[in-house]
């Protein structure tokens, strides 16, 4: 992986830096950009972001490890995040998770061998009216049952 932002990402970062009175404030946006560019964040990416922002690499590392949306490994084309918090839980999120495990043949934290689906769990996504619900890439889906899950997965094939 060549660790260098595209021209477009560099342009976005320059714009972002103008939003804050200091450069460190741009760490989270810069890591978001990096994750979009490279898919996930390696040590090299952290060092690169630190260099771009002219801050110590440890300051980037602290942020990278604190926030759950940043990942250190690739995910499948579709990243399924099943909400497990209380409103989804009492509406049957355990069944949703069990069904997806069985159907995709993977456990939580794994990616299907064809690289299409990664299955993870998340805490409350702020969409409890759709409980039980999940996020696939940028989109929210719910309320879920087996039929609905079949339809959604099919639409993603």
């Amino acid at each position, binding site marked *: 992986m060549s660790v260098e932002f595209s021209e477009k990402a560099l342009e976005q970062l320059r714009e972002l830096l103008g939003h804050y*009175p200091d450069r460190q404030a741009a760490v989270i946006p810069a890591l978001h950009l990096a994750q979009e560019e490279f898919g996930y964040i390696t040590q090299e990416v952290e060092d690169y972001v630190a260099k771009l922002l002219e801050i110590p690499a440890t300051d980037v590392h602290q942020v990278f490890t604190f926030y759950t949306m940043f990942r250190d490994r690739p995910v499948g084309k579709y990243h399924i995040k099943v909400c497990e918090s209380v409103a989804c839980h009492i509406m049957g999120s355990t069944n949703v998770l069990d069904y997806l495990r069985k159907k995709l043949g993977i456990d939580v934290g794994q990616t299907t061998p064809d690289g299409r689906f990664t299955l993870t769990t998340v805490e409350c996504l702020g969409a409890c009216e759709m409980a039980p619900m999940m996020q696939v890439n940028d989109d929210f889906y719910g309320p879920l049952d087996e039929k609905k899950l079949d339809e959604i997965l099919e639409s993603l094939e």
Partner: protein
Amino acid sequence: MPQVKVLTEFFDVPDSHKIDVWEKHGGYQAIRKVLKSMTPDEVIEEVKRSKLRGLGGAGFPTGVKWGFVPKDSEKPKYLVVNADEGEPGTFKDRHVIMNIPHSLLEGMMIASYAIGAHVAYIYIRGEYVHPARRLEEAIAEAKAKGYLGKGIFGTDYDLEVYIHRGAGAYICGEETALLNSLEGKKGWPRLKPPFPATVGAFQSPTVVNNVETLSYVPHIIARGADWFASLSEGTERCGGTRIFSVSGHVKRPGVYEAPLHTTLREIVYDFAGGIRGDKKLKAVIPGGSSCPVLKADEIDVRMCFDDLAKAGTMAGSGGVIVMDEDTCMFDTLRNIIHFYAHESCGQCTPCRQGTGWLVRIFDRIAEGRGMPGDVDNILEIAQNIMGRTICPLGDAAAMPVISFVTKFREEFEYHVREGRCDLEDRKQRVAMAS
């Protein structure tokens, strides 16, 4: 009891998120009025008189908070919008942003003017990808019309609004953790004092307000503080309406706006249609998962901050989570405590360790290995977290524990003693009898 709609009235208007539609419905008149004819102090007074309270969780009077910002500070001042919406059971801010982003932007303009800020940030949780885009579009629309940027509305007042996306951490909804996160640090809460109003973002005076709180402000200015305050009848220290997020075992989960004298029963049965399958109600959490639970016979309480406090719980973020008679309280609380253990930022020992201990005890009981004294132990751990941490996340974890266990103690004892759920046993008994 009818719903009274101030914000949600616009949710049904087609394309209500677009600036032209918003303006056709009177949008951006309040900020014009403010810039033309009101001093910052007059704006603050008006918001104080409206009895608008913070709708993010703590319920602090909004105008009073704005008044704390020092006028003589040399430093820049900031407005920061809390769009982190992480409290389980809460989803109203997402609806506000998707449906009426310009109500928020206009509220931000008025608040910024009142406190003397020229830069405002919207801190939005990272998972809200579409809402963040919607805000970006709304900001672009407002900029194109000269409503944001240099000299807004043809005056000499400048205001920039920037979106700052979070990256997955419930704690960043707590205002000082949010400020650290905005500054590019991990989201560890700060000791207060100093309060953000004096030392907030980038060491400067800062007001942090919730999305919904700010979205009411244009309507208060346009229609008057007295009108807003009078929407809630007989609630001395709070006015207006708020948007309740209703989830769980109801027929119609969703967002419902209502005055604060509305009772919890009306929300559950009139607005949300009552319990699915016409089952019996067992319990309701009235204000997001950190608020003490209420039993079915405790829901004739008005949803204003003071009445809920008197009832031993909190108004919180307005997230009403409804549980029917088949809900296992042990299993539900176990889920809640897993959440707080996962989200504890690790800074304070009582919260970090206490939530970890609770998880281990709950998991052990769930595996059928409960021990005599577990229930008292759970209560003691929770009581030892209360009030001993920098931020209220520790309390947020302890309060549901104490209330669930105290109010449904029998169920917890049963799990400890029998190693299984009394609900399952009860269902089996019914099945055998029939």
